[in-house]
């Protein structure tokens, strides 16, 4: 395989978290029985008219400000005309020539820690379509219009990504951002956050882009990565075997891990876009923009920079802990009960034990069985040497399953660390007396046996001996060695 460069651009569809639809008063809640959340406007009854939901515009503007984009003072809704049963009007209301948001950018962190800026061409408002239902209906298809008219923000990137990993990093960053901004719940299983990937390859050094294929409707980070990897391999193989990539829309089949053509450009619809005469142009003035700007939270990059600066965390740790607002808030609440120098300890525990337990049991951090104050309680026992880090993990598991405070578990299980030198010494004496051969070997230079003695003492004390004390006392007792 010669040297190919991969070029990827993403079109992300984020469902906006408005209570009602973009052009009607129907609720947007997911999972209701079919067609119970579709009113006459959603059903496109004769004579009905769309009325724009101002909340959707605020959310789009919020996104635009967060990615440093230009918010259009005047944007226009257009009709995209095509026939499909899940599209009741026979056209989708979208923004075409004049989108509400244009020319923004977002930074992503690459595996090597380098930061890359990805351009955001535009973000526009549009309505979602309904769903066709084919299961359980003999010789017929059903239509569920609950989703019809749900507001979407379509976020279109520049073709700036150069690998599947970069594409995933960008998508994750947008995912983080829209949840920070509270404009999208980010629920990918329910389709609230999904993307289309435009993928092409070109010989490295060539300026002109290769012919691209568009992979539709990817609704998980893993699928985005796998679909792009498959598609890149397919295109490279095709070109290297003398073939040509055709511009087409493809679907990713996750069961077979392959992409398949959906429709080619030649049979593409002519959507006959034109401005929707039922809706006035959206006029946005400075006070509106400023009012939205005032609602912007601390953004992920700002939070990560602050964590790195104030708590001395590595850029990686700071990035992980700011990946969601909830995780960041949890971490900060834990740190608040510790001294600043213990922030790294808190970071390790939040990213390690806590995240592990949350993942294992599929629990959201807001519903964590150990709240920040309880975790702080546990970490304080490490800091004040009541327990060792190793025992702390055992206490953590007990806290997780029993829901009790660290101190209660330490007392109940007698896990308090032995810090009484005399008590530790008497155990050491007993261990040495019971292992004369090892003692001799050690003293004759087998340094590694130091660990054996540590292990024996820990075993005898149930792991409760203070490790630092044990080290010092053991060295003194064994003497003669080189440790």
């Amino acid at each position: 395989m010669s040297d190919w460069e991969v070029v990827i651009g993403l079109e992300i569809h984020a469902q906006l978290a408005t209570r009602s639809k973009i052009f009607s008063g129907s609720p947007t809640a997911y999972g209701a029985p079919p067609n119970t959340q579709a009113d006459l406007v959603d059903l496109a009854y004769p004579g009905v008219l769309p009325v724009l939901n101002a909340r959707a515009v605020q959310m789009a503007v919020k996104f635009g400000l967060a990615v440093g984009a230009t918010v259009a003072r005047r944007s226009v809704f257009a009709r995209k005309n095509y026939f499909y049963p899940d599209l009741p009007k026979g056209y989708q209301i979208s923004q075409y020539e004049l989108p509400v948001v244009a020319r923004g950018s977002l930074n992503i962190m690459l595996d090597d820690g380098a930061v890359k800026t990805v351009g955001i061409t535009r973000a526009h408002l549009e309505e979602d379509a309904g769903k066709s239902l084919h299961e359980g209906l003999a010789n017929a298809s059903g239509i569920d219009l609950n989703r019809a008219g749900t507001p979407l923000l379509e976020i279109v990137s520049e073709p700036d990504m150069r690998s599947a990993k970069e594409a995933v990093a960008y998508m994750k960053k947008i995912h983080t951002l829209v949840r920070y901004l509270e404009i999208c719940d980010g629920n990918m299983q329910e389709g609230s956050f999904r993307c289309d990937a435009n993928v092409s390859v070109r010989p490295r050094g060539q300026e002109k882009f290769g012919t691209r294929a568009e992979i539709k409707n990817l609704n998980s980070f893993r699928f985005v990565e796998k679909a792009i990897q498959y598609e890149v391999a397919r295109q490279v193989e095709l070109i290297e075997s003398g073939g040509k990539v055709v511009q087409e829309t493809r679907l990713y089949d996750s069961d077979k891990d392959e992409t398949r053509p959906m429709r080619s450009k030649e049979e593409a619809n002519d959507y006959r876009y034109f401005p929707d005469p039922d809706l006035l142009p959206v006029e946005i003035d400075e006070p509106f923009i400023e009012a939205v700007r005032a609602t912007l939270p601390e953004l992920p990059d700002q939070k990560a920079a602050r964590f790195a600066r104030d708590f001395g965390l590595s850029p990686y740790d700071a990035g992980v802990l700011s990946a969601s607002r909830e995780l960041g808030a949890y971490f900060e609440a834990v740190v608040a009960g510790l001294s600043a120098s213990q922030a790294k300890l808190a970071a390790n525990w939040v990213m390690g034990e806590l995240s592990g337990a949350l993942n294992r049991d599929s629990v959201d951090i807001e519903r964590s069985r150990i709240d920040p104050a309880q975790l702080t309680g546990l970490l304080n026992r490490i800091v004040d040497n009541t327990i060792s880090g190793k025992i702390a993990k055992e206490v953590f598991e007990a806290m997780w399953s029993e829901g009790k405070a660290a101190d209660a578990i330490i007392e109940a299980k007698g896990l308090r660390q032995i810090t009484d030198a005399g008590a530790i010494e008497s155990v050491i004496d007993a261990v040495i007396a019971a292992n004369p051969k090892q003692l001799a070997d050690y003293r004759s230079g087998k340094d590694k046996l130091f660990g054996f003695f540590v292990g024996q003492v820990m075993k005898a004390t149930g792991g409760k001996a203070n490790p630092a004390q044990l080290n010092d006392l053991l060295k003194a007792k064994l003497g003669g060695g080189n440790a």
Partner: protein
Amino acid sequence: MLHNLSIGELADRLIKRQISSTELTQHFLGRIERLNPALNAMITLTQKQALADAAAADARLAAGERGPLLGIPLIHKDIFCTDGVKTSCGSRMLDNFVAPYDATVVARLKAAGTVMLGKSNMDEFAMGSSNETSYYGPVKNPWDTSKVPGGSSGGSAAATAARLTPFATGTDTGGSIRQPAALTGVTGLKPTYGRVSRYGMIAFASSLDQAGVFTRSAADAAAVLQAMAGFDPRDSTSVDVPVPDYSSDLSQPLKGMKIGLLREFFEGLEPRNAALLEDALNIYTGLGAETFQVSLPHLPLSVPTYYVVAPAECSSNLSRFDGVRYGYRCENPKDLMDLYKRSRGEGFGAEVKRRIMTGTYVLSAGYFDAYYLKAQKARRLITDDFRAAFAKVDLVIGPTTPTPAFDIGAKMDDPVLMYLNDIYTIGANLAGLPGVSVPCGFVDGLPMGLQLIGPHFAEAKLLNAAHQYQQATDWHTHTPRGYA
């Protein structure tokens, strides 16, 4: 006779309890039963509901409630959705469609206490100038039943002219109120675009459609517009400007009013039509108005512009009629494409299909700039012409139609000839301006209309000028033979 009384006179008698709404309703229902078969002005009659509504209005009157339209019967064009009542839009596509809600116009007039007698015949989806494209057959002109009544609101116009109702609603996209009003000898008002809500009015061309009214006088039109007009949060294109009292200015003297004679309208006008306009201008100058020549140089572009913009919007607006959720569905569709093709192929008539095809074409990739965009530019130029004219004059005046009512069938084979019938009315739609047509005499025994067009939201001034003309003339009181 009751049916010759104005809305104001009827309201007065209702309030004085000299007649009841029930009697009035029975009177008009009786006329419809007797006279409509020769006219075919109606698609649906709602006798039972009408009598119930009349009884309710009588109860409100008995309780001391007062209102200029309380207890007054009306007919709605079948383009307005009426809750629980068939709303066909003159099409086979909606022959089985019972609307589940009231259009805002219907709801407002209902709240004012009107009594709906039924729904009137119309060109299919309001596409036509003669009422011959209706699935329910052509409407006949009460002045001569071999003639068309004009369109698309031909049923409402004929019913008002034949005194089957005190008034009727209509819609005007390119002249569909003013042209049939002229051809049937009644007063037809098309308000400013955005003055009356379009919610519940089945869309033909959204940027041009406007609801209005047929009455027998400008004074009656003022009373009806009062109830219809106003901002509607459900129509984003309705305009939130205060609604003035349309009746209070009717009697204002016209002294000093500047009336513009549209050169483009008068050039090449048929001599008898020109003579009627000459008479009307003399009346106006006699009333103290001053006349000026004004020119709208881009007005000759209005028909071609309209026949790009209106079909473009209609091709998209009518996509919802796909046989899936309501309306006509073909028998035994083989698959989805077959369902679409046959439902639409069988449900729509020829003129609707012609406009959908034209509209689809002008929006297509490669043609959009040459047709749709160019038409939008021409539309802007026409609007600017009107704006310049209204910097000089208060209103402009001209004929409503080039000729009186023509024979049924005469123009059905030649769409362009049919389209030219709207040559004087389309400009106001493209510019969103209010216009009114009032009867101004007869040619060959058939009524002709005088058209007044004003600046945006100048309905009060238009009605004032129309009312003063009707105070000085009696053309609007002429009744077709057999309908007096």
